[in-house]
């Protein structure tokens, strides 16, 4: 099959997480918190799917994200694919059926995206203290939120596999 149906489910779940996080950010715009919850978007596709399906799912997620957020178009697509490729390359070392490894990976990818975003777009403001205060606030808020959101999101994705009567096991089992 050209595309694993689970890729569509995972893409749909990614769209939902992006939409919900933007709704929350919009409602909290007068507060000094902003949630950038992008790490979990790439973890399960890279751990569960065959390469072709993972690539299409992550590519579509990246393009969707680039249309929502105001970074240069292609920025998040490239970064998500880069993070996804790294996870996919090492995926035999992780246990995707439990939340521990995906949670750690989600945090690492999220940190990578925030750092890359800051380096790419924040360079003119590196000397401004208020910029760093907001970046640090965003970083802390996002990673604290991920502690709750990421496990829920992974469980939701697995639940969607079951509801759609799809394969619930990853393609490659981990090396133990």
């Amino acid at each position, binding site marked *: 099959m050209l595309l694993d149906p689970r890729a569509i489910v995972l893409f749909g779940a990614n769209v939902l997480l992006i939409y919900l996080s933007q709704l929350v950010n919009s409602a909290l715009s007068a507060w*000094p918190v902003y949630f950038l919850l992008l790490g979990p978007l790439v973890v399960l596709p890279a751990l569960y799917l065959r*390469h072709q399906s993972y690539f299409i799912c992550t590519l579509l997620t990246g393009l969707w994200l680039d*249309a*929502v957020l105001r970074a240069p178009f292609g920025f998040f697509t490239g970064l998500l694919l880069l993070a996804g490729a790294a996870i996919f390359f090492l995926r035999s070392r992780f246990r995707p059926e439990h939340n521990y490894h995906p949670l750690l990976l989600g945090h690492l990818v999220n940190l990578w995206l925030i750092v890359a975003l800051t380096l790419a777009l924040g360079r003119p403001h590196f000397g401004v203290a208020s910029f760093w205060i907001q970046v640090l606030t965003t970083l802390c808020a996002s990673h604290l939120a991920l502690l709750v959101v990421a496990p829920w999101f992974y469980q939701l994705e697995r639940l969607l596999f079951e509801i759609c009567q799809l394969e619930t096991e990853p393609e490659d089992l981990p090396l133990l």
Partner: protein
Amino acid sequence: MAKLRLDKYKPLVALGVFLLAWWIVPVGVKVFLKAGFTEFQAPAWVANSYLEDLEGFWGRRMHSKRELEIAGQEIARAKSYYQFNAQRAETLQAEISRLESLLDLPSRREYRYEVARVIRRDVNAWWQHLILRKGRDHAIPAGAAVVFAGGVVGRVVEVNAFTSRVELITSPNFRMAAQFEGDPRPVVYQGLPQSGFGDPVGRVSDAPQDLVVTTQEPLRLVSTHLGGTFPPGLAIGQVTWLEPGVTGIFQTGQVLLDPDLLSLHEVAVLIPLNPLEVESHAP
């Protein structure tokens, strides 16, 4: 000897191919992809905005008759006050037009006000934008000024079929010509990165040396016609201190902006009725 698994490197090869393809793909394709994805998700945001309106409607339906009567009385008072002001504005406008024709002054830019709901606020360390529920369907032009009851909101930076994106005045990428109220000399206003704690602020530069500002007597910064985008006299913020700039010739200072800027629900887009023609103004 263990067999080398080349398929292990497939993700890295695919990533390299993608990055190369992205680099050489024509700009038109990227623009098409961006517009396609943006337009595809716009209905979800618009629908959410209509749901919020519906929620407000049902919320108001829960008020008692007595509360509605009191609100009606207040609206009636406000209406008569604004009717009086409208008559006065008409009289003053006629007087201005008469004086302009007497002095043979060039005509001023006129604007149409398009009121639009804010469907999403995207305010963070890297960008500060609002998404409006009107776009090309209401002839919103890119670069148009956006205002609210408290003054300047920002500028339209992207127009889609049913939505448009506004860069907020707080954004570090936002820059406009301004002046202090009652002083015709132009200064430059620019947004600043916001810490998120406290009210939003901006920065004014190129202020003349003879201006004196104190916290007891702050100066009001307003828009000027010089930029061509904003009509003159719209409030930008209050300046409570000025200090010598890096050149020593001019002063710079912090502008305190309206805190409501970060939680707006409705704004007005100023659409010029007689857009500037750049060629005709060239020397």
